Each structure stands twice: as C-alpha cells, then as structure tokens.
C-alpha cells in the first residue's frame, strides 16, 4: 500500500522506532517514513529554514515526551501555521493519563493512541492508523502557500 504520501514519525526511543517501522512493513504500508528523533528535528523538517519547499507528510505520528521540544509544543506549532494546520497528527505515546489525553486534544490532535506493550496489538494499531489516515480519510484540499 502506498498513496505517495510520507509519514513523519516523531520518536526518540530507538526501540519504538524500530518496532514502528517493523509494524508498518509487516502490514505492507510502504509509504516513505521520515523519522525525527526529537521535537526540534520535527519542527526543522516541517518548517525548514530559508525558502526550501517541503512536501508535507500525509500523517504525523507524534510522541509526547521528547527531548528538546516536547510533543505538545510541536503540535501547537503545527496547528498555529496556516500551511500545516490541517495535517493529520496522531499522538502515539506510552501514557493514558487523563491530562495527557486532554492536553493533546486541546492542542488539536486528530487522534490519541496509546502504544500497546503487546507487539501484535501494537502492530495492529499502527496498521489501522496507516490505513485510516493515508487511505480511507479524505484529506482537506491543498491550500495555497501563503504569498508573503
């Protein structure tokens, strides 16, 4: 399965990164995956310095607890920018604490998924997310880049 859209995986834990990539591959989700290892790297990818045109990802899988810039701040920045405000962001994290879930939705997350410990469940969660957001879901029409 490939719709030509990339996935931006924002994940600092190398094991979680490897397991997520394994789950995507196992479920034949062959879209290109860009990995950002902390919040700052994610922001650099989405908002590159200078005038470099960057293709926006079709889906962002965002961890909350990240080095440098945390997930909620990345989410706020994404929602604050006209160019990125509609990009689907799924918070994919360890916690199911009420505050984390609430904070994520309050800052405009499209979904909140807790990473299951069991790999079969984890794999099925990642696959469901990929299929839903990259294939089933109809993305908003491409917005014109701001002319400033």
């Amino acid at each position, binding site marked *: 399965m490939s719709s030509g859209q990339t996935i931006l995986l924002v994940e600092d834990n190398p*094991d979680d990164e490897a397991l997520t990539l394994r789950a995507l591959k196992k479920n034949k989700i062959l879209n290109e995956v860009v990995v950002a290892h902390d919040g700052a790297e994610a922001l650099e990818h989405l908002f590159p310095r200078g005038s470099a045109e960057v293709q926006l990802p079709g889906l962002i899988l965002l961890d909350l607890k990240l080095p440098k810039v945390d997930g909620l701040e990345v989410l706020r920045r994404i929602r604050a920018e006209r160019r990125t405000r509609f990009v689907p962001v799924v918070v994919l994290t*360890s916690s199911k604490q009420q505050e984390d879930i609430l904070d994520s939705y309050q800052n405009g997350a499209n979904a909140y998924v807790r*990473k299951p*410990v069991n790999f079969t469940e984890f794999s099925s969660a990642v696959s469901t997310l990929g299929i839903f957001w990259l294939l089933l879901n109809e993305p908003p029409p491409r917005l014109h880049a701001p002319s400033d």
Partner: protein
Amino acid sequence: MSQSPLKDIEASHNLPEARLYTAIVNSSDDAIIGKTVDGVIVSWNPAATRLYGYQPEEAVGQPMTMLCPADRAGEIRDILDKIGRGERVVHHETVRRRKDGSDVHVSVTVSPIRDEDGTLIGASSIARDVTEQKQARAAAELGRRAEALQRANGNLETFTYSVAHDLRAPLRALAGYSEALLEDCGDDLGADGRSYAERIQAASEQMAMLIDDLLQLSRVARAEMHLQPVDLGAEVARITEDLQRGGPDRRVRFAIQRPVQVLADRSLIRTVLENLVGNAWKFTARQDEALIEFGTVPAGEAGVCCYLRDDGAGFDQAYAGKLFAPFERLHSAGEYPGTGVGLASVKQIVERHGGRVWAEGAVDAGATFYFTLDAKETP
C-alpha cells in the same frame, strides 16, 4: 533630690501612692486580677471585664476557677501551689472561659504578693488575650505545611509522569523483540527457546499491567472529589450487564437492590463497584452457577452500609486484613489473574469518602465485602 520618679509624680500631682497604682492598673490593657492564696478574686480591673465579660461586682468574691474550662480546673490548683511555694508563673499560655461561655487563649503571669513582713497574702494575675498571635502562628504553620505539601505533590506528579511515559517503553521493546525473535528466528530457536521468548512476552505484559494499576492507585489517591447523588444500584446493574456481555456463557444470577442513593464522586465510586463486582465475577468463574448480590444493611450511625456478596471461591478469614493492602494477593496468578491493586484502590476511595471497608468470607463459601459511606442515604 527625691527617692524615685514615682515620688516625683506623687509630689507634683499630690496623689497618694495607692491612688496612683490604682490608676495604672485601671488603665492597663492587660487583665489584672488580685486573688487570695486560696484563689478567691479580690480585685478586678476594667481590662479584666473586657477580657472575661464579668463586671467587678460579679467577679470579686468568686473563685478563680470560674474562669477555667472544666478540663483545666486542676491548673488553678497547680498555679496556687506554686504561689504558695513563693514561685512565679511566667507567660503561661492557656485557655480561659468568658462569661458568655466562649473560650479565649491567654498568656498569664501570676506573682505572689507579700505584706511588709514578707508574709504571703495573695497573688496578682496578669492575663493577655493571645488569640490573634496564636491564630497568626497557626496560619504561618499552616502556610509552611501547605508549601511542603505542594512541593511533595509536585514531586509526585513528576514521578507519575515519568512512570506513565518512561516505564512502559522498555517493556514494549522486550515484548516486541521477543515477538520478532519468534517470527524471524522461531525455527532456529527450538521448542525451549520459543517457550522462553513467550515467557519474556508474558512477563512484560504482566509488568505493564502492574504499572497501570500503580498509576490507577495513585490517581484514586490524588483525584479531586466532586460529590453528587449517585444510585449505586443502577451503577452495579450497568457493570453486571457489561460483564454478562463479555461472558455470555456464564450462568450468574444477580440480586441488586435499587435504588441505593448516596452522595459520592461518581467516577471514583464507580471504580469501587467495578472492582468489587469484577472480583465477584472473577472468583465465581469456576462454578456452573453463581449468585452475586448487592444491597444495603442497616447502618449503625448516620450514613449507609453497602455489601457485595458472591458464592464463589471465598478466602481464608485469617488473611482478611491482607486483602486491602496493595499488591497483596490471596490467590496465585495462575489460579485467578490480577495484580492485587483493585481492593487497595477500593479502600483508598471508600476512606476518602469518610467510610470504611471490610470483608467476610470462608474458603469455597463465598465472600462479602462491606463498605460504609459517610454521606446520608437520600430518599
């Protein structure tokens, strides 16, 4: 020139010494009371009237004990004993009772009075209202404690956040790579190797469950309470419906008293009922038929006493005390699954509602869990 400044004042104003002293006593802000060695009041200044509410004519001739709350009557005796030995009592902080029955915090200094020959003839008692100082000290102490508590709470929140976010990641790696091992190298592992990998997976999941339960326990201890009317019977009925849907083959009869109206935090009290009903469901799983009952029994004082009874595996009453301690289990994980946190949460929540919880049971003869709630049952 003259012997003392006092003599100067006497001379310039033509005042006899006694009148001068009386004027000083009368203008004092402190209550100044003269009494005999037996503790009978002989003089009473205007500040004493302001402090205690008695007019001089009501006080003079009465025993000092009339200013004492009943539980401090012995104090007056002790003070008089000291005076009798020629000692003073300095800045003694205590409580005195006013005419209107209210109590006042005072600091008292009592000194012996002697005549010219040095014979003890009575005592002077000087008392000052220290309610405000006391309140200020208490407020300061309270402030310090609140600050310490806030710090502790902040630390706890950081700890909880770290547990929720960091502790599960290594478990995902353990479970995930074990699974990868089984999938990619399963043939090379052999039967033993595969069984080891499966055990690693199972242990990781067990620990993940423990972490979740720990977080739940910390949540029930910290969550803010919002009391509202809740029908416990209706809540139990809803929980049993869910359980029945999850196990349609089980033959369990339910006898649920409705309504059982209480004032409680809905989310927390639901956790109590889910745990108790869930336990009853779990510990009757090995029998063909089961009966689970929920109802109330007459509560001694105000409040309500509920019970949740099953006719399942039960427990040895000798270990009843251990049931509610976190991570204590009376059954092995192989027999009945669980982490031993459910009943600890129940206890936390019931106690936060001002109630208590206890259990009665016998091996293979079922268990009954009782809990009281402080809030009155509303009709």
